[in-house]
């Protein structure tokens, strides 16, 4: 087989060499042409497109901090991988996929290590789901952040592909007393979270691909935990160990951080689910309407409890609400695009959206949120976000 293919391959290489020569010749003497630029192996967007993440590095450790998705400039529900938000606690490690191993040990019958090739041999599954940082909109109830990238940009949505975790755990053989799973990443700080085994067996999976290609390094390359609907931090990136145990570790990121301090001084802990939430992305803070007339109001809604059932829009500061159209398919624990046609009369007004999910959960107003959780909870803020459309067409936080 190989020998049969060899002569044509040689001819192909020779052809390639002569084509390369022709390319060089073209570059030397560019003739007027309308046929455009050279093709390329890995595409780039048009140089006219400038949307970028807003990067905020926090410390002296390189690559540690957050970057926010420019939600106001995107379309549909899928976040381009290059614009997916980031939150790193100890930078982005450079991992060699050939050397990377996932260790599954602790309360299992057969402790195992898996290479990436091993994991890719298991039955695979793909799922579109959002990931939202538990700290998205931290400070929002008190601060009125000016644009949707700053206020909601720690939310992104991708199609993820990998192996259902239940299959891998079955391979290792869970012992009955295994009730928790410590998921640990191979970042410099070996970030770890304790995850109930019930979630691991429900819809968790080990993702090695995002939007059709291998994970980006900043999304956990070569392997991350995917817990649909749960706060971003639990979707441990650069995953290298799953330790099955009978109690949570009470790691720093599930005690000191990602807990919700309530007005009575107690903190809610293991607040995993990201509750239902929606936001108008256009028109939104920092944008400007060209003038009175037709404008489509559009945005995103999502719920860690399941599917979004309904999104309502108000264009009169919350006096009346009308249903927005939901773009199919409406997927569980994924972002949903909603649209609402609007004719702006050119007068100052306030627009807002609110959502309901399939469990009947209603997105709260800012005041309803604060009445229960106060202003110190920090994490998991999901209040309604109003935007003021000013008479000159500029849009600001209301």
């Amino acid at each position: 087989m190989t020998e049969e293919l060899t002569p044509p391959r040689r001819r192909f290489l020779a052809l390639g060499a002569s084509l390369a020569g022709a390319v060089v010749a073209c570059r030397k003497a560019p003739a007027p042409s309308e046929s455009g630029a050279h093709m390329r192996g890995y595409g780039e967007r048009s140089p006219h497109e400038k949307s970028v993440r807003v990067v905020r590095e926090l410390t002296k450790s390189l690559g540690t901090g957050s970057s926010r998705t420019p939600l106001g400039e995107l379309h549909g529900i899928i976040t381009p991988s290059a614009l997916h938000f980031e939150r790193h606690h100890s930078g982005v490690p450079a991992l060699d996929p050939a050397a990377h191993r996932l260790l599954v040990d602790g309360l299992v019958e057969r402790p195992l290590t898996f290479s990436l090739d091993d994991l890719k041999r298991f039955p695979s599954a793909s799922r579109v789901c959002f990931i939202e940082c538990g700290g998205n909109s931290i400070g929002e109830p008190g601060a009125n952040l000016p644009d949707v990238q700053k206020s909601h940009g720690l939310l992104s949505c991708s199609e993820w592909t990998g192996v259902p975790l239940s299959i891998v755990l079955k391979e290792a053989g869970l012992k009955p007393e295994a009730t928790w799973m410590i998921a640990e990443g191979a970042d410099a700080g070996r970030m770890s979270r304790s995850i109930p085994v019930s979630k691991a067996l429900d819809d968790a999976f080990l993702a090695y691909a995002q939007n059709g290609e291998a994970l980006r390094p900043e999304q956990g390359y070569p392997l991350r935990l995917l817990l649909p609907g749960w706060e971003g931090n639990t979707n441990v990136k650069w995953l290298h160990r799953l330790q099955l145990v009978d109690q949570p570790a009470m790691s720093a990121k599930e005690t000191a951080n990602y807990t919700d301090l309530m007005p009575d001084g107690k903190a809610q802990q293991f607040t995993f689910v990201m509750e239902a939430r929606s936001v108008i992305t256009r028109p939104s803070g920092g944008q400007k309407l060209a003038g009175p007339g037709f404008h489509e109001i559009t945005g995103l809604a999502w719920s860690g409890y399941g599917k979004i059932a309904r999104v309502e829009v108000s264009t009169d500061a919350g006096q009346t609400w009308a249903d927005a159209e939901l773009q199919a398919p409406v997927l569980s624990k994924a972002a949903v695009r909603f649209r609402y046609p609007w004719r702006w009369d050119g007068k100052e007004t306030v627009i807002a959206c609110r959502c309901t999910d399939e469990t009947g959960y209603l997105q709260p107003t800012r005041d309803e949120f604060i009445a229960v959780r106060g202003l110190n909870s920090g994490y998991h803020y999901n209040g309604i976000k109003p935007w003021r459309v000013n008479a000159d067409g500029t849009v600001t936080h209301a």
Partner: protein
Amino acid sequence: MLSWLLLLCSAGVIAAQSQPYGFGQPATAADTAQKDLTVFPNGKGLPSGKGTADQGATIYKEKCAECHNEKGEGRPGQYPALVGGIGSLTSAKPLKTVGSFWPHATTVWDYIRRAMPFDHPRSLSADEAYAVTAFVLHLNGLVERTQELNEKTLPAVKMPNRDGFVPDRRPDIKSKR
């Protein structure tokens, strides 16, 4: 005929799923030892070792103070305070520190060993981690300067906010339409 075929096919699928796939390699004790960092509140996972706040003070000054400041007061907006804030959790400006918020001393040890110093994590020996933990707890008035912390005594340190956490009680907001 069709249903018979379907039955055969589904039987095949079930057979393929009910047996182990046989992928992966048996994990050795060395595989676990290489990644074994987890420490639990009851002390499980703590290696043997020992250290005092007095010993930790020297290490802290050299490896921690640049970020967390001389007395653990941190550097606002960049590096968190390790000290103070006890009694502040119900105030308008709660200060969440090791002393005021962290419920378990073992978490302090675990985090220092796995993630600190920030730019050289996992460079401290077990004894150094016990010593630095003792110093941070001493700054919070929780252990004496010469009190030895080891795998037995560390889990016994009672943190002020030990009972400050409650399970997730959401959905806790009842919205009206």
